[in-house]
């Protein structure tokens, strides 16, 4: 249907395109600026306001941040926590979501009530801290992995997804002699691969970005994950890695540049998985919107 568009309508369209373009620009430009700064000399960062292309490529900031073992170690801790965490989280979430998706399971409503209640009320920071402490989890990986292992929201979304799988498919597996476990492993999980991919990525991003658990549950700064080290370097200290221990190769460490390099180092992994994330998350969110 072709129709003539009024003048006001066209003005609105133009402004709309510009506005949304500007918003998207404001989203990306800070990253590009920080990326440019991380490859620039101190002098250029101090002199120039906003820029995206450095006049001279300078790798000193990266040499500096990798001159100490702090960042690589924190990076490895984050990688380890992210991988173990996502695996444990998916295991816990999937195994709990499947039984809860069975409408005739005895006790299901009580369990669902208990699960949903955690969406509106929680014990809070201090009681959780005391629980972790009395379990002896302070300064261990468990404190970073286990408390976040089930997100109630993710659990309910996956449960809803399992409910959508036609019962007949599972019944036929049962007739062929599979028990509930076999049906779950051989029928349900293979049918849920896209959902599993989505939520593994969600959990992984959550673990990677988490700094609160390590802030609360680790006292030893040798066990800090990347986010906490980032906060230390960029927001608390003056860009100085390892506090006072300066590498001798730098009489004057590139403080501003290294802050930017550290930011890029912390952002890069997320940007690398983002294309995979984007493919799935819209669908992942919408599964949950179907009421069930």
């Amino acid at each position, binding site marked *: 249907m072709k129709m003539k568009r009024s003048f006001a309508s066209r003005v609105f369209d133009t402004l709309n395109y510009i506005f949304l373009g500007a918003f998207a620009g404001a989203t990306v430009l800070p990253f590009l600026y920080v990326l440019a700064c991380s490859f620039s000399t101190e002098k250029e960062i101090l002199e120039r306001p906003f820029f995206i292309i450095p006049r001279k490529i300078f790798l000193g900031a990266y040499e500096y941040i990798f001159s100490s073992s702090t960042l690589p170690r924190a990076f490895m801790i984050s990688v380890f926590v992210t991988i173990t965490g996502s695996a444990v989280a998916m295991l816990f979430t999937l195994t709990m979501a499947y039984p809860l998706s*069975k409408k005739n*399971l*005895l006790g299901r409503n009580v369990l669902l009530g208990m699960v949903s209640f955690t969406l509106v009320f*929680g014990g809070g920071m201090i009681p959780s801290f005391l629980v972790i402490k009395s379990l002896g989890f302070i300064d261990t990986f468990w404190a970073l992995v286990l408390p976040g*292992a089930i997100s109630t929201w993710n659990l309910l979304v996956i449960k809803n997804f399992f409910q959508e799988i036609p019962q007949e498919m599972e019944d036929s597996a049962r007739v062929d002699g599979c028990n509930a*476990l076999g049906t779950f492993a051989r029928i349900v999980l293979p049918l849920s691969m896209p959902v599993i991919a989505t939520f593994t990525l969600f959990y992984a*991003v959550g673990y990677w970005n988490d700094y609160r658990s390590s802030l609360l549950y680790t006292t030893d700064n040798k066990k800090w994950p990347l986010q906490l080290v980032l906060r230390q370097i960029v927001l608390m200290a003056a860009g100085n890695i390892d506090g006072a221990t300066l590498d001798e190769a730098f009489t004057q460490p590139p403080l501003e540049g290294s802050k930017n390099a550290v930011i890029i180092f912390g952002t890069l992994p997320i940007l690398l998985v983002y294309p995979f994330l984007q493919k799935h998350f819209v669908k992942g969110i919408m599964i949950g919107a179907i009421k069930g």
Partner: protein
Amino acid sequence: MNRASTQRSTDRIALRKARRSFNVMTVKKDVWLYILLIPGVLHFIVFKYLPMWGVLIAFQDYNAYLGFLDSPWVGLKHFIDFFTNPDFTRLLSNTLLISSYNLIFGFPAPVIMALLLNEIRSQWYKRSIQTLVYIPHFISWVIVASLTYSLFNSQGVMNKYIVQMGNNAIPFLTSDKAFRGMIIGQTIWKETGFGTIIYLAALSGVDPQLYEAAVIDGANRFKQLWHITLPSIKSTVITLLILRMGHILDNGFDQIFLMSNSLNRKVSEVFDVYVYTIGITRGAFSYSTAVGLFKGLIGIVLIYSANYFAKKVGEAGLF
């Protein structure tokens, strides 16, 4: 008639009996399902329900040596201390101000953006915008705070422009006045794009025939927006608003904690940060748990009242 009803009730009893024995059978048949539940249920008990039980230390003088069971009970002492503390009104107003600004500016932002995106005809342009504006949602608050630092510190990009134009540099990160604006700005920057997804999904479900009919009836674009588009996302907006109400006293510890410093403490100290400072750094476990519990209980009251109110005005509500 009478006989029919007796017949029906005996039927019902028989049915109930059959169902009960069926239940015993299903429990046996579902034994694997119960085994699968074990890790998850344990997780909920240990990490969600034990802390809930642990809030009882708010009514104790908790002492780590005596432990949870032997610490002396003190009733409402910590609550009275908290409400009579001069910090209380400051914390409450800081918390409520940030929440209200977030509600007034942060909540409508994704709705507006979704409506604007919905008006874009070029699918290519729309998809590119979406790809970009979703990114910050996946970036950690530490990175967001760091980017803010790079752009807004006393020698940052913003201040370079301000100084170039002949003005004095503005201490964005350390001033009382700028703090709330910075927080709201960060939230809008980080979450607006991602927040549009749920509204866009609701919009994509609208029957295009409605718009065609409206055009034939002479509706212009604004009228189409008002009479078709907005009503189609109304229930989504209300659902999200109810959920938001429950969190009016949560300002997001992660964000505020990173942005607060000794110079802006007067406005940046909110309940979440206060619980951390008093509880974790100073070790006043009982008192800070009382603060947390107060916050949690208000949250429940708010979410249930918002839900009740939504139902009163004829919306579906959450529960």
